[in-house]
């Protein structure tokens, strides 16, 4: 019996010593077979326990199990250490030049006008406005007459017009490229009854020589709200919120009286200059303010033409150019870039 115990102690001591010099997985496996395999001292001792008398069985068994557990624990520890070292070596060997450029992914981008229109529409849909669109080729009636701008009205100078070469059989209707999105005020109300809240984005056209700040085709967005109790204060609230969301809370907005034949009272909204913050500079023509939109309460004559009794209903309308917004925000120096479509320009707008 003592001999068995002695053998176990010896295996324990040898095992521990040999394990220290094990350097790789292969050696470790050989070690495991030698000290923990079927024919190892420990396993043999355990297997032969049954042949021993009870008293010895207990002592030898207890010791054999202790030795086995100790060796196993050391084996596990060694195994983990080896894996760790292997991983460290692998990691150390497989480093990359991370400064190499990534494989390019084709990045498409929306046109800056689309980006701006979406942003603007989002602000207004958030306030309950519906987005609708209308024709760009219009009858003179919708573009002018229905908006209180009859032929030979001096206000027609405000909208230099591109006329379509079209002869109506009766010679009454003249066709044109809409000079503003306002004709949609009339069209929208041909199909709807108050309460109405719409915004109308779209292209408009002017007969105009182009320069850095003038383009003959550009985008506008029109707004119209008609209900029983719409007020100038509501118009202010709506447009101030718009200005705050688009230009930031620190921007100041100014309302002043202005004239558009289809609104009364008429309004012009300006924001304080982005560059000089109101001090006066070239961008704002030394006024400190930049006009961004025209607006007002829908003119009673226009309301009547919409089929709304001005004694019952009131409404506001506004219209603004779209390109001006990114031009102001990003300091774009020339409006002609927008529809010149040079990729070197378009790609700068990440949105």
């Amino acid at each position, binding site marked *: 019996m003592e001999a068995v115990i002695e053998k176990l102690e010896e295996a324990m001591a040898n095992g521990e010593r040999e394990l220290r010099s094990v350097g790789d997985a292969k050696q470790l496996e050989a070690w495991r077979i030698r000290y923990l395999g079927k024919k190892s001292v420990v396993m043999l001792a355990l297997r032969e326990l049954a042949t021993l008398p009870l008293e010895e069985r207990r002592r030898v068994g207890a010791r054999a199990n202790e030795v086995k557990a100790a060796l196993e624990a050391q084996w596990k520890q060694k195994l983990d250490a080896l894996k760790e070292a292997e991983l460290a070596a692998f990691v150390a060997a497989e480093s990359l030049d991370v400064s190499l450029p990534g494989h390019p992914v084709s990045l498409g981008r929306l046109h800056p006008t689309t980006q701006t229109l979406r942003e603007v529409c989002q602000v207004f849909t958030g306030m309950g406005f519906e987005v609708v669109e209308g024709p760009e080729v219009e009858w003179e009636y919708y573009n002018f007459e229905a908006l209180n701008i009859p032929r030979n009205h001096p206000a027609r100078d405000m909208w230099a017009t591109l006329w379509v070469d079209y002869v109506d059989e009766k010679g009454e209707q003249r066709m044109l490229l809409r000079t503003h999105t306002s004709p949609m005020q009339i069209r929208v109300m041909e199909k709807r009854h108050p309460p109405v809240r719409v915004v109308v984005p779209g292209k408009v056209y002017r007969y105009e020589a182009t320069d850095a700040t003038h383009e003959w085709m550009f985008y506008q967005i029109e707004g119209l709200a008609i209900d029983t*109790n719409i007020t100038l204060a509501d118009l202010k609230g709506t447009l101030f919120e718009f200005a705050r969301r688009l230009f930031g809370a620190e921007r100041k907005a100014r*309302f002043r009286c202005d004239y558009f034949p289809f609104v009364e009272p008429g309004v012009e909204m300006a924001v304080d200059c982005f560059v000089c913050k109101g001090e006066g500079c070239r961008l704002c023509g030394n006024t400190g303010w930049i006009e961004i939109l025209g607006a007002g309460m829908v003119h009673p004559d226009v309301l009547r033409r919409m089929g709304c009794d001005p004694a019952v209903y009131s409404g506001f309308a506004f219209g603004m150019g779209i390109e001006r917004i990114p031009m102001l925000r990003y300091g774009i120096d020339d409006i002609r870039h927008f529809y010149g479509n040079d990729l070197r320009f378009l790609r700068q707008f990440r949105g």
Partner: protein
Amino acid sequence: MRVSLNWLRDYVDPVLPPEDLAHRLTLAGFEIKAIEVVGGAWDRVQVGQIREVKPHPNADRLRLVTVSLGERSQTVVCGAPNLNVGDKIAFASVGARLIDGHSGEVAALKPAKIRGVVSEGMVCSEKELGISDSHEGIMVLPGDAPVGTPLRDYLGDTIFDIEVSPNRPDGLSVLGIGREVAALTGQGVRMPGVAYAESETPVASLASVEIVDPELCPRYCASVIEGVRIAPSPEWMQRRLKAAGMRPINNVVDVTNYVMLEYGQPLHAFDYRRLAERKIIVRRARDGEVIVSLDGVERGLNHDMLLICDGREAVAVAGVMGGLDSEVSDVTVSVLLESANFNQAFIRRTSATLGLRSEASLRFEKGLPAELPVPALRRATQLIAETSGGKAASGIIDVYPGRRERQPISLFNGEVGRLLGMDVPVERTRQILESLGFDCEMSAPSEMRVSVPYWRSDVGQSADLVEEVARIIGYDQVPTTVIAAPIPSYEPSPVLLLKERLRDILVACGLQEVITYSLTSLENLKRTMPDLSLPGPMPLRMANPMSREQEYLRTSLRPRLLLTLAQNQRYEDSVKLFEVGRVYLPRSGDLPQEAEALCAVFGGASQERSWRAKEAPVDLFDAKGVAEAVLERLGVDASFVPGEDAGLRRGRCADIVAGGERVGVLGEVHPRVVENFEATGPVYLLEMELDRLLPCVSTGVRYRPLSRFPATVRDIAVVVEAGVRFQSVLDLVRGFPLVSQVTLFDVYQGDQVPQGKKSLAFRVVYQSPTHTLTDEEVNGVQQRMIEALKDKLGAVLRG
């Protein structure tokens, strides 16, 4: 409109500093575009008087001038020709900032030694002071100029450059602006005096007026001033005209301009003796009639123009410009002064037809009140008599066939508040309106009857009165609220949503969105065809195109997009662009159909250049991949059918068919078309018509539960005739049960397969929603599949 504050002070006290006044006027609707300070830089310039002029000892053309400045006097060297002892002049001391008469630059005056004489100061010309461009001689001040006073106090002024909106012709006058200032600052207006002495001769004995067409000339007033002496107008008048941007001419013409600026009523002075039969006839022109206008240009007239004629011929185009023959000249001794009212639309049309826009026509076309001619005529008559030594005949001629009474406007209590969203007491409303010259009277406890002053032709109904109240209170005083009513319900527009989704999908596919001009040239449209024929219907043309490049409304997105591609190919290896926009298809007797379309073009490298990937040119399947991505994301069940499109290359073109309709086309742009646009080929193109695509778009998602049972994957390779389309293989394979997915992974033609054949290798995924598939089941299906491929397509299973 340029308004001098010095002039404005004749009628009202500005009270506020100029910047504040400008701010108030701007908010109230009269935008001050610029504030110009005359004399802002005159820090060391004073009124002086010439005491002595002596020759310069060393120069013939220079003089030594001694100038008294009150407490002191100074002697300087001066070369001006108009140096007279006793004249009042502007004297600049050393350090004054003056404009150099030759270079135009501003510089501080330095002491100078001129031909041996030290000169510390300078007698100034108008140009040196920035008053005008005149530099021929020194500026001579009026005799009443107080010697020693800083020039700024005597001559300095502030000019407002005011943007007057077209509904406010009254604002095109100093008095009109004065009325605004008075209302904004709570004071009254001092009207100019119009009294003058008349001669014994009744004006009716000197001239007569006949209006043939009263519709076009509601009123014509005239006076006659005899014994005038034509000379320059007084200095103060010239100064004011210059400040307003007008050129002084003579004492009669200057008065007509002065009163136009003062009252807003254009006037015209005729040389009375040149009027045949001493008669004025207002009539339409005869077709072919001509007149030589004041500017010396002969102008052809027609029946749609109104003329002022004497007993023989036309002497002026009414409301637009006078004639040369009857112009007031140095020899004029009597003047007939016209102050009339003309139909605004008619004047506008006439001036547009003649291409002649004058200060007069600009005012008439905005609609002037018929009450205005009389006070303006009296004022002008007074000033002419005063400045030219003439005497007015007694009375005025006043032919007034177009008299109209204006009805008062009812303004109900609460109407102001209802539109503005703020409570304005009736008393405040009344006070504001009265300050602007309106007469208010309570006709009932809840109703005010408001009479509009004649000069406010723009005010016609109660909303106009509300604006008056709002702008005088100030829009900044109106509260800021949100719309209180519930949000109206609506359905989003499906086309709008489709456009936005298309844009998002194409951007996700790596394409850049562009927006191109809607107008193009016929040539550009034709360039999209190899034979340069016109594609589609004849497009709508502009009647007044700005250029040939912008003459026609596009019927296709292709031309501008191909141009844009070609332009960008100069800088870019890989160009992939798309546009979602409208084409304009003419319809008889109606506005064109504005059809929404999508067009995408692909040129150059398939991918951007990279250090790993091999460079490959873009090909048809790049474009098709995008088309498939679009259709997949929209849930459109579409097929690609070999198609024909004259602009695309035959054999490399597919119609995109969905719901039995052609919703689009895909293909390689015809090489000649590529050449027409000077692009670098090959170029591929994808086009869709949104009206046709829209009905095929799946709304929502039909959810299918995930199969709990494993899939079996088999790869199959078959050899078929090269002409067999993959689509027929795909359709056949998909027709078998249990097939859940088919993916083509190789197409091969070459040494490994017989001549004229190709190998297609694809992966088939089998899966059942109800059970785990056994090998036997899958083998059975696959066996039948292989047989069917052989029977129907002659496919042979590859080794």
